[in-house]
């Protein structure tokens, strides 16, 4: 680090801190946040006839199968992100989207229920972030991260395929150094390294007020089933599990092209917890007969950001995606899109000073932050449901009734939004306390108390989860 003396806030005169023709920008990390930032920055710069030089530092070869090319994740491109990218003109072709997802299936020990999208449309995408699991020999699909990075380079960005070792400051400008290289000065450094990297520590030493996000460990496994077998078994649904397995909070099984991805959240996640989940009867029930839970093609234990950074910006620095603020447990790529675009808009139209980021970028981070606090309460309720059998029964009974009898999807809508991350938690939370929902809960109770529900029986039928006619009910 060249200059560690803490600069007084807003030391950069605003006029100097505006980007102009020939300004140089370093983007550290070419995952979704870094690539989308670059794409939108260069797209908007072109609209105002400005020429910018963007270097993306990204060591991962995203086309390679196995861990080297993969930013470990469940690979769900959420309903809202699919829509936003479509409006923005970022086309996700069927080479990238391995499977369109049209429904969620909630599995519990007391039964399962399917919640479908309107018109049976595929509104959610399942992708591989890299070239796929280790044993992929012939690439049939394009890596999602490679696709986004290509969009950025098509706009004129340069990729430097090396890891950044050190970030510093000299003469009021940030510098970036790669192994064996000299520090290079930039007008703006955009940090998009995610959280599975040691470099975040370096930023704490810079005196810019950055403190790393809080993290927790997760587990991901990939199983090869083959395209046809997946079509007949797991299908085009994302399967979510509320099971009373010690230490397990939440689990999902997501169908891709030839593979299914298993994602686990919980306390002290480890391989044993993965094995316990994989051998649960509810999981075996959706997998093909004779499936070997021990035969995973890939396994990893990545970190996830559970409490974002308080100050994800400084003079000529901005932290986007997971290295800054993201959504709790859901739609991390969608949050990366939001923070990336807010940072790009700010840098181009408002400048790169601390003040510009505080006033124009931070509100988006705060909105995500604030919503996460509400999300924590929503997750407390799912935790209770996980422990209370009667509550699980009620959830299954009410949702089935809504789906089968074409009732207004009060609970189905809440569940859909919790699983898919397609609405703010505040919105979901308010609808959880819809009085009509309580009425349905009470009405369902006698049945819940006496009956057992067969876990194989799935309620069919499409439903409208965002029924515009649903009256807004305040909690």
């Amino acid at each position, binding site marked *: 680090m060249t200059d560690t003396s803490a600069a007084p806030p807003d030391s950069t005169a605003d006029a100097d801190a505006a980007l102009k023709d020939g300004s140089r920008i370093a983007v550290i990390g070419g995952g979704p946040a870094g690539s989308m930032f670059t794409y939108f920055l260069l797209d*908007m710069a072109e*609209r105002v006839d400005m020429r910018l030089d963007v270097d993306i530092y990204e060591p991962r070869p995203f086309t390679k199968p196995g861990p080297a090319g993969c930013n470990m994740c469940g690979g769900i491109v959420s309903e809202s992100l699919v829509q936003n990218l479509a409006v923005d003109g970022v086309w996700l072709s069927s080479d990238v989207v391995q499977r369109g997802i049209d429904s969620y299936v909630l599995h519990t020990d007391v039964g399962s229920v399917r919640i479908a999208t309107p018109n049976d449309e595929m509104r959610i995408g399942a992708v591989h972030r890299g070239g796929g699991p280790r044993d992929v020999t012939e690439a049939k699909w394009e890596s999602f991260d490679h696709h986004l990075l290509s969009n950025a380079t098509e706009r004129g960005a340069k990729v430097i395929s090396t890891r950044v070792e050190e970030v510093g400051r000299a003469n009021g400008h940030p510098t970036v150094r790669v192994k064996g290289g000299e520090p290079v000065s930039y007008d703006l450094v955009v940090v998009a390294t995610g959280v599975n990297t040691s470099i975040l520590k370096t930023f704490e030493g810079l005196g810019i007020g950055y403190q790393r996000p809080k993290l927790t460990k997760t587990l991901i496994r990939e199983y090869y089933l083959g395209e046809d077998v997946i079509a007949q078994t797991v299908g085009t649904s994302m399967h979510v599990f509320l099971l009373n397995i010690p230490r397990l909070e939440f689990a999902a099984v997501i169908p891709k092209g030839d593979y299914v991805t298993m994602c686990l959240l919980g306390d002290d996640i480890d391989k044993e917890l993965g094995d316990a989940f994989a051998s649960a009867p509810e999981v075996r029930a959706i997998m093909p007969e004779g499936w070997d839970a021990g035969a995973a093609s890939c396994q990893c234990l990545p970190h996830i950001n559970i409490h974002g950074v308080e100050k994800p910006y400084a003079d000529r620095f901005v932290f986007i995606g997971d290295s800054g603020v993201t959504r709790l447990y859901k739609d991390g790529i969608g949050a990366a899109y939001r923070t990336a675009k807010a940072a790009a*808009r700010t840098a181009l139209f408002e400048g790169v000073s601390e003040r510009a980021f505080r006033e124009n970028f931070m509100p988006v981070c705060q909105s995500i932050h604030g919503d996460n606090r509400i999300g924590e309460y929503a997750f407390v309720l799912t935790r209770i449901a996980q422990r209370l059998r009667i509550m699980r029964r009620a959830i299954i009974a009410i949702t089935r009734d809504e789906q089968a009898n074409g009732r207004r999807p009060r609970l189905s809508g809440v569940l859909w939004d919790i699983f898919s991350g397609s609405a703010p938690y505040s919105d979901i939370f308010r609808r959880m306390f819809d009085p009509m929902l309580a009425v349905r809960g009470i009405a369902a109770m006698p049945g819940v108390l006496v009956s057992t529900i067969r876990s194989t029986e799935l309620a069919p039928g499409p439903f409208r989860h965002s029924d515009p006619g649903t009256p807004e009910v305040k909690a």
Partner: protein
Amino acid sequence: MSEAALGRFYEDGEVIVRQGEVGDCMYVVQDGVVEIVREADGHEIQVGSAGRNEVVGEMAIFDRHPRSATIKAKGRARVLTLDKRNFLRRINEDPALAFRMVETLSRRIRLLNDQVVALQAQLDQRDG
């Protein structure tokens, strides 16, 4: 066209939205082509078409009038539906989301201007 991808398939001639209906969605063509036709006095006039990555039916999101034209698949097409609610919420946070919509609308106006000029020329020829 892959069966696994985003959106929904519409067969040749299948109607995506119908003129006169009230709508709260717009559409982005994922694959194939859709045509925009106006129905008047029992016959149809094609007023435009849209291909991959193009937005159609966006007017219903901004003005609250019934659909001004029918949109239907020309050949097999895959189309993604976008909700008004999600779009307006997002545009509130990110006005840049409107850039492409404005671009689309300007292109349409340009096209309309050309058509007006061409029609005027035809009329002049006939009268003159």
